[in-house]
């Protein structure tokens, strides 16, 4: 009887997870769907609490309350711009939990574990441990607690391969003689190291791809656990996560025109990259008043946000400038490049936070034909995603990456702090073009001044 309750709670949890993810296919249904997913999680937890092996509840309660409080506070307090690191961190916690459960299982049953169970526990601990350290490094890099640039040494890939090989050997030993505790803890230690080694050589800007991959690994670890303990909800949720992670990393890589292996083993962004089309000429600086006049008397303005808008936390002022322009009957659109910023869909979230209706957010394919009819394109801390070299110069390191054709607008205004390069570390000929005017300074400050100037124009 109890079994039925537990099993049905898992079945419903699975269904709710699927419905929840499916609801993310449209912003109108997304929230309701996520509530269902939350209910699903609650059901799974309640169902589990009825499990006959559970004898005492007070420690569980403590764990739930403490964890819930920490999670809630973190999620509530963190700024929207710090999302990537929070997601990485939260991910690391999940992986740590899986690892700990695996250790506890092993510590308890040790030598008496059967082969298939041992395989599953091994995979769980292996993937869990590497995901834990990998996520922590990713979070640290994103939060700039650690050098964002790749940390590399010679023969790194061989060392990594060696570590991986040894830990797999340890796993095989364990399967055939589960009593070999030494092999277990060796495997655990190596997996922790491997997670570090895997992520350290990757640049901060590539972290979203890495995180998606780690998410996929964590999903597969859950699937493995599901097979081991014959639990379908774990298999389903794990597989969904696994696929989600792989699909997202593939999409991101495609939008950057790079392969996954290049991201993971390429240590991209470490070297300055082969010098692209020699920078001829000097960028033209314009003043706030000129820019404001251009904007105020335009018929159509396209905002092109990038990573700089996120670091400057300028999304609210961007929206304010847009409102001021709209009051003057200027048509305002936002052009969102799929990998602008540092997370897939990063700009969408920030602008949505600033209350921009999503009907004004245009994807690359939708907006590119619109630039020639646009009076002013205003680039706010974007660089690589508007680099015309990607389109025109086959020798460029980012050649082939789809870009926003900002340079085809009648006039371009670029907001950046100085001569800094974008994530790819290359020159951007857009800034040297005739019809481009630069407004140097922190994006938030510059936009504030622009607003007052437009109001007075």
């Amino acid at each position, binding site marked *: 009887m109890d079994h039925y309750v537990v099993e049905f709670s898992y079945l419903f949890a699975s269904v709710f997870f699927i419905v929840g993810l499916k609801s*993310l296919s449209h912003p109108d249904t997304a929230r309701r769907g996520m509530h269902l997913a939350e209910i699903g999680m609650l059901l799974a937890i309640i169902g589990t609490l009825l499990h006959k092996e559970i004898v005492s509840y007070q420690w569980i309660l403590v764990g739930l309350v403490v964890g819930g409080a920490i*999670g809630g506070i973190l999620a509530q307090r963190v700024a929207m711009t710090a999302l990537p690191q929070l997601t990485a961190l939260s991910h690391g916690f999940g992986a740590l939990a899986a690892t700990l459960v695996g250790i506890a299982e092993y510590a308890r049953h040790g030598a008496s574990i059967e082969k298939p169970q041992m395989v599953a526990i091994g995979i769980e601990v292996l993937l869990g441990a590497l995901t834990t350290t990998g996520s922590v490094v990713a979070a640290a890099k994103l939060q700039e607690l650690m050098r964002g640039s790749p940390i590399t040494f010679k023969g790194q890939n061989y060392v990594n391969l060696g570590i991986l090989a040894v830990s797999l050997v340890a796993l095989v030993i364990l399967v055939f003689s589960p009593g070999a505790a030494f092999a277990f803890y060796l495997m655990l230690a190596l997996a922790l190291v491997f997670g570090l080694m895997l992520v350290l050589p990757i640049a901060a800007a590539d972290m979203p791809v890495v995180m998606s991959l780690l998410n996929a690994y964590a999903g597969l670890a859950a699937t493995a656990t599901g097979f081991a303990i014959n639990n379908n909800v774990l*298999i*389903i949720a794990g597989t969904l996560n696994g696929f989600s992670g792989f699909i997202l990393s593939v999409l991101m890589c495609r939008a950057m025109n790079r392969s996954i292996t290049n991201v993971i083993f390429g240590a991209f962004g470490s070297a300055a990259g082969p010098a692209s089309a020699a920078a001829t000429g000097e960028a033209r600086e314009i003043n706030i008043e000129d820019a404001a006049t251009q904007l105020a008397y335009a018929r159509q303005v396209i905002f092109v946000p990038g990573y700089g808008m996120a670091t400057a936390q300028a999304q609210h002022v961007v929206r304010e400038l847009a409102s001021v322009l709209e009051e003057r009957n200027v048509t305002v659109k936002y052009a969102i490049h799929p990998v602008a910023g540092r997370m897939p869909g990063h700009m969408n979230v920030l602008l949505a936070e600033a*209350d921009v209706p999503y009907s004004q957010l245009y994807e690359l394919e939708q907006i590119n034909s619109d630039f020639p009819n646009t009076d002013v394109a205003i680039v706010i801390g974007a660089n690589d995603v508007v680099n015309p070299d990607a389109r025109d110069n086959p020798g460029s390191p980012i050649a082939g990456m789809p870009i926003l054709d900002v340079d085809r607008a009648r006039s371009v205004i670029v907001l950046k702090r100085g001569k800094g390069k974008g994530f790819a570390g290359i020159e951007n000929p857009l800034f040297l073009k005739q019809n481009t005017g630069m407004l140097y300074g922190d994006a938030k400050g510059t936009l504030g001044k622009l607003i007052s100037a437009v109001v007075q124009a």
Partner: protein
Amino acid sequence: MNSLMPGLYVFALSAFLGYLVISRVPPLLHTPLMSATNAISGISLVGSLVTAGGDHGVLSTVLGVTAVICATINVVGGFWITERMLKFFRRKETPVAKEKE
């Protein structure tokens, strides 16, 4: 028949479903998607509950309770942040006062 097969079916079907469902999520919602799947992956909470509540000695309980804390952070943090993000997405401009930080 044997205990592996049903799991394989569930796996194969979920893989298809995952592919179909995820590839329909528009880029607009990719960031919420990441944190939503992140939250759902906290389903390993289920395992930690059994470990924490079982009567298998101090080590097991300590590990289990730590795991429960970590997994709960994962679940609560993940869903909460997803919720926070999704709240922002609105279809049309509303006359609500503009938020400032």
